[in-house]
């Protein structure tokens, strides 16, 4: 199974990339995705997450083909 992982704004700079694919075989939460994909970087304060372009939570279970996005607080307007 595979998911797409995306990082936006300052988080992309901190992690060192803006997107990539992650292969997995066991059930995973969004928190697991962060741990695995960032090689265990600490979870930043105020981290926002989205799954398939909707706000989600770290405990949400991801599915094959999902797009998981991590980003800092939003600053538009």
């Amino acid at each position: 199974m595979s998911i797409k992982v995306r990082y936006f704004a300052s988080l992309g700079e901190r992690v060192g990339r803006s997107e990539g694919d992650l292969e997995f075989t066991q059930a995973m939460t969004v928190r697991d995705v962060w741990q695995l994909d960032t090689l265990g970087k600490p979870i930043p304060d105020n981290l926002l997450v989205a799954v398939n372009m909707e706000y989600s939570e770290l405990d949400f279970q991801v599915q094959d083909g999902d797009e998981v996005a991590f980003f800092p607080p939003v600053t538009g307007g």
Partner: protein
Amino acid sequence: MKVKICAEAFNPWQEIQGYQDTALEASAKFGATSIFIGTMRDFNEGVGVQSMTLDYYPGMTEKQLEKILTDAGQQWQLIDTYIVHRVGEIKPDDTIVLVAVWSSHRGDAFDACRFIMEALKSTAPFWKKELLDSGQTRWVEKNTDGYQKT
């Protein structure tokens, strides 16, 4: 109800007029139009800002803005709503955001416009990176709560 992401500078007054002339149905029904326009300043947190880059999440940003407009339509009696938001490189005096709300009565128009703008500021995936007069760049870390009195 419409959301537009704009990579070029836009004139908010022309956008309002154009939308009202061509897209708005029920033209003789609205008695109140409430508008918010956000413009880029040349200073932030005590230092000069030359320009900024507005990043966004294509797909999710539009979806979130549409959700905000739908939420507003469920809370107030609205005839139509329109959001235009800039992305890309922005200079001082450029319009960043336009929110326009058409309703039969002013109460709904005022309140929904404020709600839409505050929801946009706290939930729409946009991020600003400023180029300072010093030549350094910095990400804006968070938006302030617009309902908080300073």
